[in-house]
């Protein structure tokens, strides 16, 4: 799954740790999502979407879509 999390985070000037704290996950999770090694759960995707005031589809995109 492709993710725009890194761009959105950097646009806000947040570190991976800052975003991890806001999403209540570990920094390793944020890094794994940004590097597309891990697909977030639906609740975590909703949390990220709410944090950036966007829809899930605007942040995450399925490969091949």
């Amino acid at each position, binding site marked *: 799954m492709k993710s725009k999390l890194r761009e959105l985070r950097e646009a806000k000037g947040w570190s991976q*740790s800052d975003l*991890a704290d806001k999403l209540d996950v*570990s920094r*390793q999770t944020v*890094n794994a999502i940004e590097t597309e*090694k*891990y697909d*977030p759960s639906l609740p975590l995707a909703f949390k990220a979407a709410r944090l950036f005031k966007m829809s899930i589809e605007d942040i995450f995109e399925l490969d091949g879509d």
Partner: protein
Amino acid sequence: MLYTGRNMNSKSILPESAQPERHYSFQADMKLNVWAFVAVALAFWSRILLKHHPEWNDPLRAAVALSPLLPSLLYVRSVAKWIRGMDELQRRIQLEACLFATVGAIFVVTAFDLLKAHGIQIPRLHAGLGWEGTFACVVVFYFLGSVIINRRYK
């Protein structure tokens, strides 16, 4: 990197640069693993007791022989609680490591049984792996699995 119960379940609100370096915590690991130590101690203790008291009746022998099972169940409960408190990626890593450990241990136990069934004796292990050997296999494969799977998400 292998995680202890403490550093997997407690997230500091401080940015990482401001956090003190995380150290191994004996207290946190004991809190998680105390029932495993009790189970292993009881397993050795019951073996010695049963060896030295062959005159005991069967119900008493059974109670002593099965005594490690209760702390083992309590250990499984504390591990389940520890895994539930994790971050979702860490939970996946630990569950995959547990699966790796289970499959690895089954593989080794099956290999020993196959060798035994065909009359091939392994020095010092001719009676099979036993309870302690199987447990040691699970532990070794769990740590190996944790390292391999953690590396995948780095």
